[in-house]
């Protein structure tokens, strides 16, 4: 890896994007492992992991746009695809969970009908 010819400000921005993305994705997966019922577990990874992977892909976009000629559009394509499809898959999983009448934690508003 040859990042010696990059200006240090760009290196700082890329490193910050990579680190923040990894931390946010870790928080989302921690929420998936820790939270009590399915409807709260759905909340963690669908927001946090998408944002974390989006930050990682933006850092990679900045890096490769500097290393290679022209703007690297493949990362932008993956980012747009993830941001477009994550709500759809989360919606489908939520509908499947409601159809299976999964239980929710006590005290939640509008619980699924038994």
């Amino acid at each position, binding site marked *: *890896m040859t990042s010696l010819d990059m200006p240090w400000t760009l290196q700082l921005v890329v*490193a910050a994007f990579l680190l923040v993305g990894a931390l946010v*994705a870790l928080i989302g997966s921690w929420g998936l492992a820790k939270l009590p019922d*399915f409807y709260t577990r759905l909340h963690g990874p669908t927001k946090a992991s998408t944002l974390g992977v989006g930050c990682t892909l933006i850092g*990679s976009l900045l890096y490769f746009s500097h290393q290679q000629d022209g703007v690297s559009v*493949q990362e932008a394509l993956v980012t747009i695809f993830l941001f477009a499809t994550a709500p759809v898959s989360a919606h489908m999983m939520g509908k*499947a969970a409601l*159809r299976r009448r999964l239980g929710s934690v006590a005290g939640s508003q509008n619980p699924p009908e038994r």
Partner: protein
Amino acid sequence: MIAVVIPIAMTLFAVAALLNLYRLAIGPDIVDRILALDTLMINSIALIVLADLKMGLGVLFELALLIALMGFVSTVAMSKYLLRGDVIE
């Protein structure tokens, strides 16, 4: 600076993947396992992108796009099967 940050980020994503595997193992219902597999797909995309950055290739994005596509289609297919008892009606 980037060469220092990339192994740290890969470690954090590996811990996230282990947490997803934990939820995949203990998940009480099958929808939890679908959610864990979907999150595992998304984290593996980030791991592929970070490996590409570490090797300095810039050619693994087709792989990332393919895995994103397969993860989305498989998640929607499994949810649709649980929802309606059939994938394509």
